[in-house]
């Protein structure tokens, strides 16, 4: 795909940033399970925390394609920093921009975009995963407050977030029509965090449980209208899938970068490894699949930018990019052999990080259902 000059320049710029400033930190973030606050600050300075948000709200005033390119390039060197960027932008910033009123935007959106606050998104619950409409967290209106009770799980950046968009139901019997979206701020009474998850990968990103116990939030923290929360979240996820597709692509490309670097230097029985046809076959296959994934991701982003429905395309982008990305990272280890199992090379980390891309923000199975429904009808 030929990117216009504007996008190429952006790509060069963000790639430089990722390679110079993020890449040297990646191994250590994974090892120490350290959240990169300094990188968040740096990305805020570079206006990377609100790439697709208009300048009037402090954003970069760019578009979804630039955003996808940024997540891809950051993910290419560090999955943990990539998932932070994707979650903060698509799940923290976007729903407030999309569904918030002006007052809410000035209160929450601007500090999020400026990186003064960290954003997060609470949808998943212990018993509401793929079945997101099964939300059991409840909201009860009492005077000027909503009283919230319930537990959210697997929330990216949960325990470090300052502003959390979440769903709760006012009437479980109404299914998804009973669900509304709200915002809770860190420090609100009755709102606390459970433990952080100990995960296979993305260990430099925080995943937490959120606990609401008679948590009272002011009425004006309702995002959109009552009963329309599910719609807000589905719209959010349609866009979020583009960024997870971009991240899956980036991690896969990171593995391919490592393979290329290794194969160009390595020898087997005195012969350059790059001349080995077994290797050539694997590399060609991975490279072709990742290139196809890139087309799907960029296409979904462009559709969103021009305002054409992109539900099917974003689901395809995430489904395919995570699938071929998983394959690429897995094959990377098969090319590196035992050396690749150690932390001297980044490939085992890429494989651990990539597995989440087939799960988070809608599993591959859910993506296939979305795609099939778009093609076959409900």
């Amino acid at each position, binding site marked *: 795909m030929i990117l216009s000059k504007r996008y190429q320049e952006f790509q060069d710029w963000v790639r430089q940033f990722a390679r110079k400033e993020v890449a040297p930190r990646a191994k250590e973030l994974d*090892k120490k399970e350290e959240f990169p606050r300094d990188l968040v600050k740096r990305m805020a300075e570079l206006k990377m925390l609100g790439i697709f948000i208009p300048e009037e709200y402090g954003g970069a005033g760019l578009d979804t394609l630039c955003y996808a390119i940024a997540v891809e390039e950051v993910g290419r060197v560090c999955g943990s920093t990539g998932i932070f960027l994707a979650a903060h932008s698509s799940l923290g910033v976007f729903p407030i921009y999309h569904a918030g009123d002006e007052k809410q935007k000035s209160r929450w959106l601007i500090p999020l975009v400026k990186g003064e606050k960290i954003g997060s998104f609470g949808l*998943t619950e212990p*018993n509401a*995963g*793929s*079945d997101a409409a*099964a939300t059991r967290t409840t909201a009860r209106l009492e005077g000027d407050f909503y009283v919230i009770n319930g537990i959210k*799980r*697997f929330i990216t950046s949960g325990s470090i977030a300052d502003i959390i968009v979440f769903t709760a139901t006012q009437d479980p019997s109404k299914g998804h029509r009973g669900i509304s979206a709200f915002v809770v701020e860190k420090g609100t009474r009755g709102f606390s965090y459970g433990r952080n*998850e*100990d*995960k*296979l*990968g993305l260990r430099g990103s925080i995943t937490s449980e959120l606990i609401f116990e008679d948590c009272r939030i002011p009425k004006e923290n309702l995002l959109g209208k009552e009963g329309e929360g599910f719609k807000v979240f589905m719209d959010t996820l349609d866009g979020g899938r583009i960024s997870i597709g971009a991240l899956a692509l980036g991690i896969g490309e990171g593995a391919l970068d490592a393979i290329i670097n*290794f194969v160009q*230097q*390595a*020898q*087997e*029985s005195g012969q350059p*490894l790059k001349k080995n046809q*077994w*290797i050539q076959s*694997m590399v060609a296959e991975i490279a072709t699949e990742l290139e196809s994934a890139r087309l799907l991701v960029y296409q979904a982003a462009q559709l969103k930018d021009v305002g054409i429905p992109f539900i099917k395309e974003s689901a395809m982008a995430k489904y395919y990019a995570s699938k071929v990305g*998983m394959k690429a990272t*897995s094959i990377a*280890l*098969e*090319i*590196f*052999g*035992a*050396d*690749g*199992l*150690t*932390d*001297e090379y980044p490939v*085992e980390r890429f*494989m*651990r990080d990539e*597995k*989440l891309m*087939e*799960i*988070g923000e809608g*599993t*591959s*199975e859910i993506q*296939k*259902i979305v795609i099939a429904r778009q093609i076959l009808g409900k």
Partner: protein
Amino acid sequence: MGLIIFNDEQTLIQNEVKKFVKDKLSPIADEIDKKEKFPEEIITTLTELGLMTIMVPEDYKGAGLDCTSLCIAAEELSKECASIGLVMVVNNCLVGYALSRYGTQFQKTQYLNSLSDGVIGGYGFCPEINNPERLLKSEKKGGNFVLSRGNGFILNGAVAEFILFSNFQEKKFLLFPKQAGLKLKNQYILGMRSAGIVRFEFNQIEVPETSSFSFDNKVFDLAYIGFSAVGLGIARAALDSAIKYAKERKQFGRPICEFPMVQELITKMKIAVETSRLLVYESAKCFDNNEDSSLIANITRVYVTETAVLCGLNAIQVYGGYGYTKDYPVERYLRDAKTLQVLLGQPYLAKSLIAKEILL
């Protein structure tokens, strides 16, 4: 499945190992994995049960059993804890069998005999595909092999008292006690984290030629079959976990096992596991019948370790977000499986051996 038929002795071994796993290993398997340390106590018990020397000839105080028995034990142990299965397979195949098949009388008396007393042997190797500066540099000087450079791994290295090092350049196994000049590192490794795998660098080490012996592919045929039995254990564990979870976990008002997309994930695992079982025991039978087992061992190694990886990936997928956490064992199955798949060499090397056998 009627193709795999165990004789009385093998059935006895299976029952014994199953009982040991249930009574002794299961209660602490989780702890062993969490600690990521070589489980010395369990290995001592395995020695007492004769499993660490299951294939060592009776003349050298071993159990003198066959490859099928080894696979039965490896499969059952690995279903609970793949690291333990691997330790046992390495000790039997790459140390015990190598010594008994190729070693001199002195080496056998000295080293092979000691295994049944609880001495653990290590298997060392340097990966042969890398940047030339990292590859093994070995020269013959006087009556010695001089190893002046090389980055490698020692399986069972954390506790091994002696090491069999495969010098592929010279087609020789070098036998030496843990000694100076061998820089050992406890480096991070993706999986098999309780198996005591250590990294080493050679720093000018000399091994007398008299401490070396030649080998052929037989020892690796056996090792690949043993590794595959470990992979089969991991794959079965992943399959069992996925089945159990899919029946328990409810979404959209019903157990997720009722959804065809989940069924597809699990049936793929099941088909590959059943096929893998046939391959493992078919290749073990070939080996035991003294047939040329090179082709079947390589086929088995490629297919079964790939199956283990597939099962690890699919089990995590069935568990969803939960599977990505360390609260459940499925993420470990993936890490162990992937480690097993590439530890002894790139899978394409095995495929090229298969191609050589059937085409060239």
